[in-house]
């Protein structure tokens, strides 16, 4: 027991240490390379020599890193919820079509209500449309794939594909027909953190806090649900209620991230999978690790996206998909072998 505790402490220290070093490193990288000393000065509230650096760090990079970290954490958490709910390690908001549904809702909201009006502010601050269409997409994917009592893996993926096709087309339609700012819209759709702002941090922090709270509170329940519905019922879980709850929370969390960054796929798939490989499948360990790694992965991909392809920026979703799609193939192959 003691040895296990020690191991866990070492892992925790490694992760936290690595995370901080990674964070500082990422602050220095970008279109403008900022020396590491300046980053240290920034964190120790020292006087930064170059005022340009100060502006970049305070107004652009730091909020972007924090927003990115929180969004990565949320996407990863959403993936954990969907995977437990569908009893399937391949579930993720992007694959299930939830993300495209949310993107469509967001675009529709802007096209219908415009920007700067009272209505648009209401629908912008509270991403109602994004929530609504994410839920709709998730429901459709689920019911299309449902065969009697079970939801087969391949059917689930296929109906996710259908939802993705439909909502991508519908999004393009709305952009061209109603909005016409194709360039900026397309870039947003491919996923980007370039619109990150300080004022996005408080709501994101709140949602992440609530999400983590739920994740911790439900970790033993998630373990039981991973064994199957009947097994979960046998150990006293009100399965139907929990499933509905996970479904709605997972969707809302993913939908919220979409309004800020657009569609960034596969994070909810890659990260929980990696976390399980490191600490095992017990959600009491894999949930917090997923959240942490999700944040690191997301900011890491964003740093690559914004610093390696100057003078332009690579869309963030491109990077995560390039990493995520092959991994998806591997997990699919492996889960077939298990059956």
């Amino acid at each position, binding site marked *: 027991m003691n040895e296990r505790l020690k191991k866990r402490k070492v892992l925790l220290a490694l992760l936290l240490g690595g995370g901080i070093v990674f964070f500082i490193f990422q602050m220095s990288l970008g279109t403008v390379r900022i020396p590491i000393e300046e980053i240290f000065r920034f964190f120790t509230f020292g006087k930064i020599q170059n005022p340009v650096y100060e502006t970049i760090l305070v107004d652009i990079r730091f909020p972007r890193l924090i927003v990115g970290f929180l969004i990565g954490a949320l996407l990863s958490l959403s993936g954990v919820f969907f995977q437990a709910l569908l009893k399937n390690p391949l579930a993720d908001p992007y694959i299930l079509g939830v993300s495209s549904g949310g993107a469509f809702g967001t675009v529709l909201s802007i096209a219908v209500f415009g920007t700067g009006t009272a209505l648009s502010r209401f629908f912008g601050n509270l991403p109602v449309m994004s929530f609504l269409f994410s839920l709709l997409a998730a429901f459709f994917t689920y019911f299309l794939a449902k065969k009697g009592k079970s939801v087969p893996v391949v059917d689930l993926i296929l109906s996710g594909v259908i939802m993705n096709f439909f909502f991508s087309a519908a999004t393009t339609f709305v952009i061209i027909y109603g909005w016409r700012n194709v360039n900026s819209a397309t870039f947003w759709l491919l996923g980007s953190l370039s619109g990150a702002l300080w004022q996005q941090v408080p709501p994101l922090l709140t949602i992440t806090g609530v999400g983590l709270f739920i994740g911790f*509170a439900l970790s033993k329940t998630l373990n039981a649900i991973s064994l199957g519905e009947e097994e979960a019922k*046998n150990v006293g879980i009100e399965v139907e209620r929990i499933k509905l709850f996970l479904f709605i929370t997972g969707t809302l969390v993913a939908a919220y991230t979409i309004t800020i960054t657009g569609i960034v796929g596969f994070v909810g798939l890659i990260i929980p999978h990696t976390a399980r490989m490191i600490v095992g499948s017990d959600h*009491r360990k894999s949930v917090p690790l997923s959240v942490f790694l999700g944040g690191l992965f997301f900011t890491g991909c964003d740093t690559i996206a914004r610093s390696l392809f100057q003078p332009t920026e690579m869309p963030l979703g491109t990077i995560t998909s390039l990493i995520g799609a092959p991994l998806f193939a591997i997990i699919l192959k492996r889960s077939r072998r298990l059956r």
Partner: protein
Amino acid sequence: MISIEKLTFQYDQNQLFQDFSLTIHESEFLSIIGPNGSGKSTLLKLILGILKPSKGSIAIFEKEIAKMKRKAISRMVSGVLQDFNPAYSFSVEEIVAIGRTPYAKAFSDFSKEDYRYIEEALTETGLLDLRKKPFEHLSSGEKQRVLLAKCFAQNTPLLLLDECVAHLDPGHVQHIMEVVKEKNRKDKVTIVAVFHDVNLASLYSDRIVVVNHGRVSYLGTPKETIHKPLMEKVYQANGTVLTHPCLDVPQVLLNRLDRPQKPSAGLIIHE
């Protein structure tokens, strides 16, 4: 301990049970046998509260299961069901720990008591050496022992087993059955087990209930239930029923239909 009264259960237009009544006594080992599709597994799921009766009632310690909360049921009844297929790779220990879910608090770690039950369950099922192994790497006999250990950790006065030794070799069958019988003897846990192997049911049960077409065909001790009419009327099988040479219980041997069915002398044959 359990009283099933006038149970009626319909599933997809199929009437599986009609006016089915049965009383299960405290700390007995009761086996349910009957032809395939006679609703044996369904009966277990009804007792577990996974399925709800269309009519009639199932009560445990005089409390009706349909009106109880899931958590309350799970502290009374545990079960080893068929088709266990976890979504992720869990270790043996992690699966056994899930048996403590009905007692766990949301935010804290499992308690000392929880860990004691987990240890005990692993010991009783002989899994201590395998505790860290991933479940999917185990043999089917070992897997069944893990499921049993999970139920032991759940620490319920009633344990339901759905063909928990089907498709296992004789060594694993005996090991598992002895572990179950020991639990029944030592901790007075009531066992309700579904078998398709009539001989196993006869070997380990205090009572046997024969279910056919949603009704009780026979009910009683192995001697009262395992007989020629059971084989002929319920199973439509041609067999010889004799007494186990070492134990005073009936056992069934199947006959070949193309050979003479006259037994040689010196054996106690039941008609």
